[in-house]
Every structure is written in structure tokens, then in C-alpha cells.
């Protein structure tokens, strides 16, 4: 009998629970390899093609933020340039969600209390979660490596890519393990872990954008912020271009340290409790709470505050980067066309193309928020809380519309925050504060109709298929993001790219805002939302 007794059984339980979810994550992420390889071979078949595109890319900090600092012109390095950071992020989210699912979520629902009362050791739950997640990352890394080797890439670099991605996933798993000890709810733990993944991405982006362009003119040595990021560690392995294996030590040490911290915390705290002690609250409600809208706001405001902070931080980072971009670009107008093609713009000004690319990211972030916020009604429904509210004088339409109002209002607020903070900082570091503020806030709001379309889809899914709605809404978001933001990069046909609402958003400020697509998107959003409300009114409450 040790504190690890029963780990094996819990591992089998976790695998049984995840038998569909984890394989989907793994296959979905590994599927990037064939898509990216096909695209690279089709569009950049020779070293000369690749050098040409990379020369333009290193002049565009926006691209470097989104992707990574190019390490070379070989086919393998080009594949890494198109794939590595996204795969690392996906491995990160797969890992954090799975760790929280098998630790804090079990505690929150009381399942671990039942399990803990059987012959199961104190550390067994966390150990089992980490074993399953480690297995998933190893399978993912192995698949990626095998796929790359299958496409005739050098073995060392391919294994390095797989190992790097798996390593990033494991680092985030370790961080999620700590978050699951600190936070008392799985939502909060997932939030902390997701924020760490986001910060890691931004840090790497900053480091890469601020990196030193090498004399060859198409590779970049990243600046120090990249080295602070677990996603940066993956790219710094320089697969196919030197294969720096020692970089793998960074994720390894971090994993061991974070897991040790998580175990130490497990041994010190009570089951079901977090590290933050609950405090008493008001014995009576304030009038602001006492309406369906007040309740929806109360339940959602924490999520919105978190996103608001993230948006402002990101906006400030982008705004402060804009001056660097301008300096770096100088009069390098020769590569304008290529950059515009990659950044999705159709005009000439590189600064505008940079901002347009950033606006697309704000749009995606606001869409992620709105989808997350609109999952709240479903959570309320399945927990039984909605039942108690709907058994009072609150009508179904009022109840759902209150949540929709908070979600949509929140999305507007987030876009304004992101655009305004970008414009303000860009203006302060450059010139024309007022003009930048107004222009960029407006440009951010151009993203709203696409965001609302995904909100409409989430509401419709909730109205029609409540039990599947969470998966459907996130799938729609992911597909829209990949098809819309990366469709051109992946060389997808226009008909496929048109599925995504993001495809139809004018690349303001690089392009002018045309009304027709925005009106059409808004109309689709309203139709979907209205259908969702009508369907919800007519259906059974599903637990």
C-alpha cells in the first residue's frame, strides 16, 4: 500500500473515458502534417521559391508572431515554419484539458471522493492523469515523426519535431497539474492552464518578431523572450537545420519540476479543496443580481474579465510592436505582394497589412470568448441549475436571451478593448494617437459579424442538439479558424474557405470595409440565433 496504489486501475478508467476524445485530438493534430507537406510541395517546390518567400516573411513581424522564426530553406524547415507552433499549441490544449478532466473535474463533481474511499492512494489520481497524458503526447509525437519520415524527411529532424511537440504538451500538462491543485473548479484550472499556453505563444511570438535577421536574409535568430516559452523551446530545436537536441532538456527539467510541485501540493491539501480558502459572502443579494440578466452577468463576468485582461495585454503588445515593424520594414516595399498574400490583405501598406493580420487574431479571440460564454447555458442546463430557474417566473426566452446578451455584449467589449489598446499604444509609440485609436478600434469591430455568426451557430446547436452542442460549437470554431485564417496558407480551394465566416471579413485596415459581407454575416448570425431561441423554446430540458 503506497500513495500510488490503484494507479493502474485509474489509468484504465481514464483511457476508457477518453477513448474517443484523445484519439480525435491526436489524429486531428497529426493531420496537419500531410496537409502542410502537400501545401509546401505544391507552392514552394524549390529552394529558390522557399528562400524568396522566407525573405519576405522575415520582414513581416506579424508573420513571425503567428508562425516562428525561420531556421532555413530546406523543405523540412519550411514544413516546420508552417506547422510547428500550431501543433505545439494543440498538444498543449489536449494536455491541459485532459489533466484537468482527470484531476480537478473529478474532485469538483465528487467522483474522486468515491474513488478515494476505495483502495486508492493519495497520488494515484494525479499520477494516472499524467500517465495517460504522457501516453497521448508520446503517441502524437510518434505519429508526427513517422508521418514526416514517411514524406522522405530526414529522420533526425522528424524525430526532433515529434519529440519537441510531445515535450511542449508535457510541459503544459505539468502546468495544468499545478493549476488543478490551486484552483477549486475545473473551469478556473482550465482557465489558468489556457492562459499559460497563450502567454507562451505570445512570448515566443515577441521573441521571434524581435529576433535578429541573419546575413543570409531569410533566417532569424530569436530574441530572449522566445527562450522563456515552452513553445519557443520546440522551435529552438531547429529541426532539419542543426537539430539542437540539448534544447529538449528544458522541457524535461520543467516537466519534472512542475510534476514534483503538483505532487507536493497534493500531499498538503484536502480532497475537494483548493489552495485558496473560501470566504463568506453577502447574506443578502444586491438588487443587481435579482433578474435573469443579473444572474447571467454574475455567472459570466469572471470569464469576461479574464478575456478582457488577455485582450488588453495582447493589444498593448501588438501596439508596441507596430513601431518595430515600421522600422524593420523601412522602404522594403519589394516584398509587399508576398506579404499581403500571406497576411490576407490586398492593399499596399505593410503597416496596414500587419494590423489587418492582428485584427483577424482579435476576431478569433473574440469568437473563442463568445463560444465559451455561450456554453454556459448548456452547463447550467446539465447541472440542473437551469431547471430551478426555469421553474420560477422566468421564461425560456428571457433566460437564454440574458446569457446571449452577456456573451454578445462581452464580444463587442473585447473587440473594443483590443482595438483601442492597440491604437492607443501604437499612437503613443508612433504618432497620431487619436487617429490610430479610432481607426484601429473600428477595424477591430469589423470582426464582430464573423464572431456573431459563430455565436449564432452555438445558439442554434444549443437549441437543436443540446447534448452535442459543446462539441459542435467548438468544432465550428476550430474549422472556421483553420479554414478561414490558414486556408490560403494551406492552399485550400475558395469554395472550402468560404465556409468560414472569417473568410468574408474585409482585411481592414489593409482593405476598405465593404458593407455587403458584413451585413450578410450579421443576417446569418441573426437567423441562426433566432432559430436557436425558437428551438430551445420548443424542446425538452435535457440533463
Amino acid at each position, binding site marked *: 500500500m503506497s500513495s500510488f496504489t490503484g494507479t493502474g486501475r485509474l489509468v484504465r478508467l481514464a483511457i476508457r473515458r477518453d477513448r474517443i476524445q484523445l484519439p480525435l485530438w491526436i489524429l486531428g493534430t497529426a493531420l496537419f502534417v500531410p496537409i502542410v507537406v502537400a501545401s509546401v510541395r505544391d507552392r514552394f517546390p524549390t529552394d529558390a521559391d522557399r528562400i524568396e518567400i522566407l525573405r519576405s516573411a522575415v520582414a513581416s513581424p506579424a508573420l513571425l508572431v503567428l508562425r516562428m522564426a525561420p531556421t532555413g530553406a530546406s523543405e523540412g524547415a519550411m514544413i516546420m515554419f508552417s506547422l510547428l507552433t500550431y501543433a505545439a499549441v494543440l498538444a498543449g490544449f489536449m494536455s491541459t484539458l485532459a489533466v484537468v478532466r482527470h484531476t480537478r473535474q473529478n474532485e469538483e463533481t465528487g467522483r474522486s471522493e468515491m474513488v478515494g474511499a476505495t483502495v486508492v492512494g493519495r497520488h494515484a489520481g494525479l499520477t494516472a492523469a499524467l500517465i495517460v497524458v504522457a501516453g497521448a503526447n508520446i503517441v502524437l509525437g510518434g505519429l508526427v515523426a513517422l508521418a514526416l519520415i514517411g514524406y522522405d524527411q530526414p529522420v533526425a529532424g522528424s524525430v526532433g519535431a515529434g519529440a519537441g511537440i510531445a515535450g511542449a504538451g508535457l510541459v503544459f500538462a505539468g502546468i495544468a497539474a499545478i493549476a488543478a491543485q490551486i484552483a477549486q*473548479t475545473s473551469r478556473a484550472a482550465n482557465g489558468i492552464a489556457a492562459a499559460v499556453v497563450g502567454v507562451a505563444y505570445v512570448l515566443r511570438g515577441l521573441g521571434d518578431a524581435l529576433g535578429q535577421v541573419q546575413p543570409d536574409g531569410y533566417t532569424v535568430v530569436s530574441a530572449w523572450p522566445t527562450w522563456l516559452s515552452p513553445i519557443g523551446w520546440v522551435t529552438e530545436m531547429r529541426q532539419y537545420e542543426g537539430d539542437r537536441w540539448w534544447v529538449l532538456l528544458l522541457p524535461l527539467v520543467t516537466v519534472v519540476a512542475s510534476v514534483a510541485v503538483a505532487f507536493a501540493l497534493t500531499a498538503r491539501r484536502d480532497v475537494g479543496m483548493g489552495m485558496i480558502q473560501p470566504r*463568506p459572502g*453577502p447574506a*443578502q443579494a444586491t438588487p443587481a*443580481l*435579482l433578474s435573469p440578466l443579473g444572474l447571467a452577468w*454574475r455567472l459570466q463576468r469572471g470569464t469576461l474579465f479574464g478575456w478582457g485582461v488577455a485582450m488588453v495585454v495582447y493589444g498593448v503588445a501588438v501596439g508596441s510592436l507596430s513601431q518595430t515593424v515600421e522600422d524593420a520594414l523601412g522602404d522594403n516595399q519589394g516584398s509587399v505582394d508576398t506579404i499581403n498574400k500571406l497576411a490576407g490583405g490586398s492593399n499596399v501598406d505593410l503597416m496596414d497589412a500587419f494590423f489587418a493580420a492582428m485584427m483577424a487574431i482579435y476576431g478569433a479571440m473574440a469568437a473563442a470568448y463568445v463560444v465559451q460564454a455561450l456554453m454556459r447555458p448548456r452547463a447550467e442546463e446539465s447541472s440542473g441549475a437551469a431547471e430551478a430557474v426555469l421553474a*420560477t*417566473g422566468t421564461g425560456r426566452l428571457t433566460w437564454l436571451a440574458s446569457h446571449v446578451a452577456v456573451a454578445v455584449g462581452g464580444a463587442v467589449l473585447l473587440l473594443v478593448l483590443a482595438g483601442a489598446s492597440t491604437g492607443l499604444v501604437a499612437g503613443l509609440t508612433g504618432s497620431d494617437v487619436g487617429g490610430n485609436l479610432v481607426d484601429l478600434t473600428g477595424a477591430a469591430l469589423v470582426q464582430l459579424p464573423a464572431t456573431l455568426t459563430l455565436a449564432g451557430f452555438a445558439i442554434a446547436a444549443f437549441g437543436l442538439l443540446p447534448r452535442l452542442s459543446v462539441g459542435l460549437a467548438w468544432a465550428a470554431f476550430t474549422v472556421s479558424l483553420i479554414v478561414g485564417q490558414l486556408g490560403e496558407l494551406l492552399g485550400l480551394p475558395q469554395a472550402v474557405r468560404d465556409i468560414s465566416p472569417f473568410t468574408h471579413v474585409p482585411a481592414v485596415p489593409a482593405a476598405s470595409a465593404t458593407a455587403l459581407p458584413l451585413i450578410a454575416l450579421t443576417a446569418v448570425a441573426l437567423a441562426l440565433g433566432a432559430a436557436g431561441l425558437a428551438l430551445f423554446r420548443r424542446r425538452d430540458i435535457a440533463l
Partner: protein
Amino acid sequence: MTSAISVSGLVKTFGQTRALDGLDLSVDTGEVHGFLGPNGSGKSTTIRVLLGLLRADAGDVSLLGGHPWRDAVALHRRLAYVPGDVNLWPNLTGGEAIDLFGSLRGGLDKRRRTELIERFQLDPSKKARTYSKGNRQKVAVVAAFASDVELYILDEPTSGLDPLMEAVFQECVREVKHQGRTVLLSSHIFSEVEALCDRVSIIRQGKTVEAGTLAQLRHLTRTSISVETAHPITGLQEQTGVHDAQVDQTRAKFDVDSHELDHLLRYLTRFEVRTLTSAPPSLEELFMRHYGDELRENGLKAEATAR
């Protein structure tokens, strides 16, 4: 007497499962009506249909003179509901939740709220995530009884309450009954139902198998008799309505169908009765009798698997 709840031939299916299969339920205004049935028999499904949370597939349902699906919101202002498994928002305090439910229901009696919180010994300033099951249940019960409504729909409201709180709860039900309000009480606690209810409905597999006052239902079952006589008892087994008789000269123990009781007592007097104790059937026995065959079936299954 008008009808607060009237359900006839209610059917509700979930895919292949027929959760309610022609259920009937009639609750008169001003009565406390017990709603009994084993787990999974359809009690909560019936209540969800009454609350307009689920849509009936067939059958007529009327609640306070309205249609539970079409008039849901208007009806909900006139009723209070306590679910069997109370889910509160973990970051709201109990006091906030009580105020919220009260206000969403269209008003709350502040004095009654204070009084009930005291009677149920609830700390309203604690966050719901720190409450035990019993305390969460108290929040819902306080919120319900602090509302000025005509009908209380209580789905196993006392699960998790300690005996002292159970007594407070029974007081509250009697108070609202005294004020002429109607209560539908789904419960597994027979003593509670016997103490509070005017009439009961027993359901099984989505159908009503028995409905009426406790006295009427008792009539349908058996009374246990233990008797001592001066002369040896003979021929007892041959009497109609006698079951499980154990006769030992001048002593006997047996069960008798309640409607044969009078006839049997006449028969016993011929042996010169010295002492006689009779135990009227409890609601529990009544219930067990209805589900006895199910228990036996399950018992046999269990035995079969054990072998």
C-alpha cells in the same frame, strides 16, 4: 373541491424508454398529496412535465387551471419548486440564491425569509460550494416557503435533512396547508407522508397503481393480528382472507385482508379472546406489498447470479 393538478393518461418517452406510460394524478386544492414510487418509476419526470420543462407526448395535464407547457411562466409565478438534488451556483452565497429564486418567482416575504433561515439554522453568508447536501436542500426549501404561492411542488425535499430539520420541514408544510395552499410531496420517507398527506398516489413504471386516502389504501391491504384465547383455536386457516397463520394451541399470529377483519373477529370470539393486538398496515407495508413482486423478482435474479 377544485383540482390543483389534474393529469390523465400522461405519456413521455425518451428514445426507446417509456418513462411515463399513461400516468394519472389528481391533486385537490388545499390538500397535501403524497407522490410515491420506487426509484426510476417516473416521479421526477412527472414533476418536470408539470413544470413545463418536458413536453408531454400524450395525455391531458392541467396545473392550477392552466397548461404547464403553454402557460409555463404565468403558472410558475404561482408555484414554488424544490428539486430532489439542489444544484446551486458555487460562487453565490445561500442568501443570494434565496433572494434570487424569490425574486425570479415574483417576490419574497422578507420577514418569513429571516424567520425560516433561523428555523432551519442556515448560514446564508456561506458560498454554495461550501454547503453540504443538507444545507443546499435547506436553501431551496427556505426559498420555496418564503414565497407567497398557491402550490408547492416538492421532489424529495428532505433528502439530506437531519431529523430536527425534518420536523421543522413538517411544521412548514402544515402551516402552508393551514393557509389553504396545495402541496405535492414526492417522498420516500413513509413516516413523513403518513404524518402530512391527506391522499397519496403510488406509481410504478410510469403508471399509477394506487391512489386515495391512506384509510382507503389500508383497506386494500392486510392487518397483522396476534391473539390469545381461552380455548384452542381451530379452523383458522380455512377462514377467507387469512394469510401466514401460525397457530400454537391458544395463541395465533396471522395477517388478514382488511375487508375480512370484521368477519374474522366474530369468528375469533367463539374461542373467548383474552388479548388481541392488531397492527394496521403501515404505508411502508402497503408500498412493499405493491412492489413485493418486483423485490422477489430481483431477489431471484440476485440468487441466480450468486449461484
